[in-house]
């Protein structure tokens, strides 16, 4: 019997063929049925990288789907990291297949409301108002357009001044300075390069930069827009504030030079690494200190930023749930938002998030969790009555672009780097704002 010779080549061929069959066979099963897109409730989950909070959220969505009578294959939870949302959403909207329910930031929500992409969810907001103690009306207002609400607030991000109190105490200040003058005095004593007092975000990536600049501008009586949301940056108060920022950067040298190129995480990293004594940021820095059991945790206090002649201002922004109008089951999609925001259920998520967000229901801030750390007291105080970056006006599409284009910060940089006089920088920033407003046909 002439047996077939087994050579290295035949073994290799057999191996490659087997691998080919295995690989293609696994991903191309012989029979596969795809559920049509319109039969599903599509929920975009933006994970917090906090297993407890993420699981609470997922569990609640699945529970709701069961209650609503959806079959397993009628709920699709898609995980979309926060940084990917803009790109994925642009593509999804372009092809007419956005999610049914997703979390939105203020700027994206405002833009999409103007583009009429959302279903009104007024009944959900009205239900939230009925909760004991009501809901934070400052943030609810941003989701309103023509008497209808297109977003339901999901979490409040107060801009908290994270301050290394051990360093301020060492400089002779038992309390965090309540004015910018006192802050500069203390900061000069604290600053010993490479350790700087103020981790002021001044980068051009849309980030904490505008909040940092506005915290000084408000203190001196300036504002981004007026009550009618028209550009109002060019004022003596803003010029004074810009001059003060220039002094802090150039004359007193209490701000590290590298802040000009920081991205959104720049001040987080600097504070967590102990390279700065003060940074204005949502509580993500503080919750990272808790998570990492940082040696700076107990030395860190949370305060409103220092004030000035016009007062001391507290600022915050919010994230929202919105429902896209393509939702195949609008009532079920709206119901999901209402279900997630039912105060008791929502409270579980907020506590699970370990201080990442403050509750949109003021009454939930009385939960023992918010008194479990001394610094949380400051956080709750900031959230109470915090104004938005667009105070005393309201966010609109043009303002959204001004934020994403860093149209104001660009001129702050011109002042700091190219030595443009403060008054001229403010004037140029105002001009640019006006141009953007005109492009959108909005009154200036």
């Amino acid at each position, binding site marked *: 019997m002439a047996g077939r010779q087994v050579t290295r080549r035949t073994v290799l061929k057999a191996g490659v063929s087997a691998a080919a069959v295995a690989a293609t066979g696994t991903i191309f099963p012989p029979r596969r049925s795809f559920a049509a897109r319109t039969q599903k409730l599509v929920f975009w989950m933006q994970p917090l990288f906090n*297993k407890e909070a993420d699981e609470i959220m997922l569990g609640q969505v699945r529970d709701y789907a069961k209650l609503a009578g959806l079959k397993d294959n009628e709920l699709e939870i898609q995980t979309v990291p926060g940084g990917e949302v803009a790109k994925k959403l642009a593509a999804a909207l372009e*092809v007419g297949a956005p999610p049914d329910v997703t979390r939105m930031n203020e700027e994206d929500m405002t833009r999409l409301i103007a583009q009429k992409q959302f279903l009104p969810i007024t009944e959900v907001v009205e239900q939230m108002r009925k909760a004991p103690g009501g809901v934070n009306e400052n943030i609810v207002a941003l989701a309103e357009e023509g008497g209808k609400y297109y977003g339901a607030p999901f979490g409040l991000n107060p801009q908290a001044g994270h301050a290394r109190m051990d360093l301020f105490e060492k400089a002779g200040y038992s309390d965090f300075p309540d004015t910018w003058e006192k802050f500069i005095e203390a900061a000069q004593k604290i600053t010993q390069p490479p350790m700087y007092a103020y981790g002021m975000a001044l980068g051009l990536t849309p*980030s904490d930069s505008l909040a940092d600049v506005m915290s000084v501008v408000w203190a001196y009586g300036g504002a981004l827009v007026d009550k009618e949301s028209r550009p109002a940056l060019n004022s003596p108060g803003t010029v004074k504030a810009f001059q003060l920022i220039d002094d802090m950067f150039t004359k007193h040298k209490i701000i590290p030079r590298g802040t000009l190129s920081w991205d959104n*995480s720049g001040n987080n990293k600097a504070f967590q690494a102990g390279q700065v004594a003060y940074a204005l940021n949502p509580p993500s820095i503080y919750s990272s200190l808790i998570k990492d059991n940082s040696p700076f945790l107990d030395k860190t206090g949370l305060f409103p930023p220092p004030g000035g002649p016009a007062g001391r201002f507290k600022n915050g922004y919010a994230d929202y749930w919105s429902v896209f109008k393509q939702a195949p089951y609008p009532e079920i999609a709206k119901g999901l938002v209402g279900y997630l925001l039912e105060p008791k259920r929502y409270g579980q998520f907020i506590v699970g998030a370990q201080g990442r967000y403050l509750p949109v229901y003021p009454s939930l801030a009385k939960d023992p969790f918010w008194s479990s750390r001394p610094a949380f007291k400051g956080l709750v105080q900031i959230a109470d009555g915090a104004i938005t970056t667009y105070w005393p006006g309201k966010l609109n599409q043009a303002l959204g672009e001004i934020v994403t284009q860093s149209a104001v910060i660009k001129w702050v940089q011109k002042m700091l780097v190219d030595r443009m006089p403060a008054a001229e920088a403010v004037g140029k920033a105002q001009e640019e704002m006006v141009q953007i407003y005109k492009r959108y046909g909005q009154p200036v």
Partner: protein
Amino acid sequence: MIGTQSGIRRVNRIAGTVVLLALVVWTLAPLYWMVTTSLKQNNEIYGAGISLWPQHPTLENYAILFTKTPYLIYFRNSMLVSLATTLLSVLFASLGAYAITRLRFPGRTFLARGLVYTYLMPQSMLFIPLLSILIWLNLENTREGLVLAYLGFTVPFCTWLLMGYFMSIPTELDEAGMVDGCSRLGVLFRIILPVTVPAIATVAFFSFTLSWNEFLYASVFLSRVGVKTIPTGIPSFIVEDVFFWGPMMASTFLSALPPLLVYFLFQRFLITGLTTGAVKA
């Protein structure tokens, strides 16, 4: 005179060594930083000082990766998508390249040039039309859809690359095979492909690494955890302004291993394939 020449040679050698060492450091430093960061505790990563070596080495970041994230699912998906893309690319590219180099048919030159132009089309211009097609085919959020999209840029390039190799093989080999009774496909699979193994290895490696590392298409086309690939999982380690560097570096390091392994296993073929192409294409 001889002494001077040997002195120049020595100086050249030293200068060359210094330049090479600098290049080695330049190339390996990011890899080294990735590995050491993956072994550091968060406190150390965010510490005031910079440590070149972990002060308290820990595997905690790897444990987080395997227990708190669906990394293994991402890994499996990356492997399946990359293998399928590689196998299909090699198959289609071989058939295409052979047809273009050996057969005479109308539009052959146009097709050959078209392959290059297709490859030059930026990915960022194509992802929305491709998403549209995938939704139309009900292949959105599936690995099959992603493989289909990847073939769109691997097949043209691999075909173009193989054309160079196939052209270097004398047609007399084909003719001899056909005289002995081989069909066209028989010639391709029994004669041409076995003598172009280095070239096949090169295009396979190219397809594998491209689909293994690809981010844009995967991030737009896939959203379900069950089908996501490693590059689309990495952004999950960034939550707004917080970066989870430890698990991110652990994930990046582990995902760099398969292409490295493939390269080491097929190094001999790859180098031969690349140099052969360089001379004969």
